[in-house]
């Protein structure tokens, strides 16, 4: 067994999971900022983004080193490729959390307004997707990843519903346009995070089974 190589793979996994933890934390803090209208949570997300970006760089560097120095094959090669892609998705999750906090900062600069959209519920579903996707990566469980893929449709529907009711609200009450637009953008940011969780789940399936399940198919190399 190539122990030095295995150590490198373990380190890569650990770094990615740690980064995943930071990304999850960013979603939770952004949601908390929305729920409480407390700018301190926004600040936490903005500060935390640097750590996510730094982690992204470190992971890419280690993955590149392992590819260059160890010439991995088969499941190890698929693992490293999956890590590189998941890494990019997690970084984007961090960016989306920042986008959410920017909308929240705009929202709290105005008096609160009651809108008929349950953002914390949507954020909960999205956060669960990210959590499960990372869990499937931790344990190499393709079936957990498959469950994540199923959840994406639910979040898409939530966003579509939010769009309909918010457009109606803007139409009925022009004074609410600014806040409604902020919430609409937050719903879209959350939906994007769900897409990243879906990508992560697809990459886990590719790593574990060697199957490309992107774009609704199950493509095995012939």
């Amino acid at each position: 067994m190539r122990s030095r190589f295995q150590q490198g793979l373990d380190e890569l996994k650990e770094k990615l999971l740690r980064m995943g933890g930071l990304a999850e934390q960013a979603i939770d803090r952004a949601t908390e900022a929305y729920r409480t209208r407390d700018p301190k949570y926004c600040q936490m997300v903005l500060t935390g983004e640097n750590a996510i970006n730094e982690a992204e760089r470190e992971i890419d560097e280690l993955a590149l080193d392992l590819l260059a120095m160890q010439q991995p094959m088969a499941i190890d090669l698929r693992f490293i490729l999956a890590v590189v892609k998941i890494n990019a998705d997690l970084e984007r999750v961090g960016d989306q959390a920042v986008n959410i906090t920017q909308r929240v900062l705009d929202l709290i600069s105005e008096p609160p307004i009651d809108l008929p959209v349950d953002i914390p519920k949507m954020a909960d579903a999205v956060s669960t997707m990210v959590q499960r996707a990372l869990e499937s990566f931790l344990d190499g469980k393709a079936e957990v990843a498959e469950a994540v893929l199923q959840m994406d449709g639910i979040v898409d529907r939530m966003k579509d519903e939010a769009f309909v009711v918010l457009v109606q609200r803007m139409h009925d009450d022009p004074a609410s346009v600014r806040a409604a637009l902020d919430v609409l953008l937050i719903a879209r940011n959350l939906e994007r995070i769900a897409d990243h969780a879906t990508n992560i789940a697809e990459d886990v399936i590719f790593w574990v089974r060697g199957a490309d399940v992107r774009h609704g198919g199950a493509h095995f190399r012939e």
Partner: protein
Amino acid sequence: MGVGIEVKGLNAWYGKNQSLREIDMSVPANHVTAVIGPSGCGKSTFVRCLNRMHETIPEARAEGTVKVGEMEVYGDTDPVEVRRRIGMVFQKPNPFPTMSIYGNVAAGLKLNGFRNRKQMDELVERSLKLAALWEEVKDHLHKKSGASLSGGQQQRLCIARALAVEPEVLLMDEPASALDPISTSKIEELIFQLKQHYTVVIVTHNMQQAARVAELTGFFLMGSLIELDKTEKIFTNPADKRTEDYVTGRFG
């Protein structure tokens, strides 16, 4: 042009030790097929059975069917004719040390009774060109001995010698393992070019080399062919766990 190889129920022994077990394998014409596996897995024995080199070792024998094109290798065919049609290049370059570069390439032709000097000149030039050595040696074909060349050049000389007798199949047993990286990449590039004219089977310990040069790769383990598939498949997502353990270095 190269021809395909069909192997069925091939078994081989060294004395009482069985080194190949019931090998069935199809090697397509004009492709490079790599044979990989740990030491002692039977990969060299396998290629040596393809041109009846195996039986040249005392107490070694083989049974089964090997068809190269229309030729039954283990039929009534003369082993010398088998080896003319199925050339072989070995791990260590082995030019005839006392012969000139020209003499080395022409050796096989002379052995086969070839006497026409003009045609021989043409064949030597063609073979050296095919082996990507012509430009480096054309000015001292008769002056320099084969042994005066560098290791990489010697190996290309051996390839030219094998090609001179116009084989249909070229077997290569670790052809670059004794060479430096630059010579290795020249040989690899050459192998890739040669498949236009020949069917190439290469034994290699170097998995990256198999990945670089071969379209198909077969994995041998303890005398059995475990898996034969497109090289991309073998190195990214092999079907058999034993292949995966080997290519990822988890073997043993």
